[in-house]
């Protein structure tokens, strides 16, 4: 054991204790606090308060209500970060986007293919159920999108690239779908503003004292949460297509992926 290692171990333990002391003294202590912060109490109390409808979100699930209504703008900008990160990853491969891979590949054995094709259906059903029940049970656009994204990613490995290169769900269609979903996310908050001729709020969900616009609070026979269902659906599609695009591009064979680097080997 060298001196360097001992020093690092000592440093790690020291940092942990330094962090632990203010946590103990200041915020949570040896047991967690008994009471919530006031803002959390307010959100919990108002999210499905059918007696005081001036602040409610028509959604019994507090997390979804905070994500897309109370702190909706926050999530909108997070979505922009998400969009930018994926676009940046795609831009590194801008020359080969949408091309068919040079290596065909046959995928894994047919036992895996047959077993997975059944699981594929189940994953998609579970994912979309999570997206569409985001305002009733745990779930929503981010969760469901991430669950559905698992399906095409594993399909890409199990069935090999050929399935995606020769299917109708091409690169262009995926990008179009993703752009449509993102346009939906932008439009849903703006619709109240347009329909009330400027008297509404951005990200207005239910009726307020100053602005008389509201999305429907129930859909068929369950609480809809107004715009929450639409935003969840669009976010789910955006997340799913974005991860699918990113993995399709990352899983290109080495021969094709080196193409964007050609001619760069002279200078750094």
């Amino acid at each position, binding site marked *: 054991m060298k001196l360097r290692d001992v020093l690092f171990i000592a440093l790690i333990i020291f940092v942990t204790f330094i962090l632990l002391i203010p946590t103990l003294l200041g915020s949570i202590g040896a047991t967690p606090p008994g009471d919530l912060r006031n803002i959390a109490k307010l959100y919990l109390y108002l999210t499905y308060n059918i007696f005081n409808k001036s602040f409610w979100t028509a959604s019994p699930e507090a*997390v*979804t209500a905070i994500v897309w209504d109370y702190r909706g703008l926050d999530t909108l900008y997070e979505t922009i970060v998400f969009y930018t990160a994926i676009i940046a990853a795609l831009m590194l491969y801008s020359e080969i986007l949408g091309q068919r891979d040079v290596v065909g590949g046959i995928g894994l054995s047919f036992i895996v293919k047959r077993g997975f094709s059944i699981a594929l259906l189940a994953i998609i059903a579970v994912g979309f159920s*999570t997206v569409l029940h985001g305002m009733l049970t*745990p*779930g*929503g656009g*981010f*969760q469901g999108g*991430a*669950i559905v*994204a*698992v399906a095409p*990613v*594993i399909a890409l490995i199990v069935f090999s690239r050929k399935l995606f290169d020769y299917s109708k769900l091409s690169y262009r269609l995926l990008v179009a779908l993703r752009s449509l979903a993102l346009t939906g996310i932008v439009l849903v908050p703006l619709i109240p503003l347009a329909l009330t001729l400027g008297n509404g709020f951005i990200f207005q969900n239910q009726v307020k004292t100053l602005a008389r616009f509201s999305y429907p609070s129930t859909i068929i026979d369950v609480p809809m949460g107004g715009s929450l269902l639409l935003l969840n659906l669009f976010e789910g599609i955006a997340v799913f297509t974005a*991860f699918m695009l990113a*993995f399709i591009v*990352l*899983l290109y064979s*080495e021969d094709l992926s080196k193409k964007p680097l050609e001619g760069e080997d002279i200078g750094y």
Partner: protein
Amino acid sequence: MQVGIGYVENLIFILMGIVSLTSIPFVILAVKSRDLLMAVIYSAVQSTLYSLLLFLLLAPDIVLVYVAVSVGLLPLLTILLVKKVGRYEA
């Protein structure tokens, strides 16, 4: 009633402590190991333990997204990376 709740609370605190203590060796192994593939697997085990911890902390929303992302997609992404850059750390 009061006694029952206190019992459940202590049980959950103990479970949380055990789960988080178990995750420490896996984190150390993931950082120390020279075999990158094994490091990915250790990190996936740590993610599984964390998802259990999040479930105990009553955050079902986070568990849903965390299982899909940190146990499913992220190890896959890292294994892809390891496959392309080579398995062993020099």
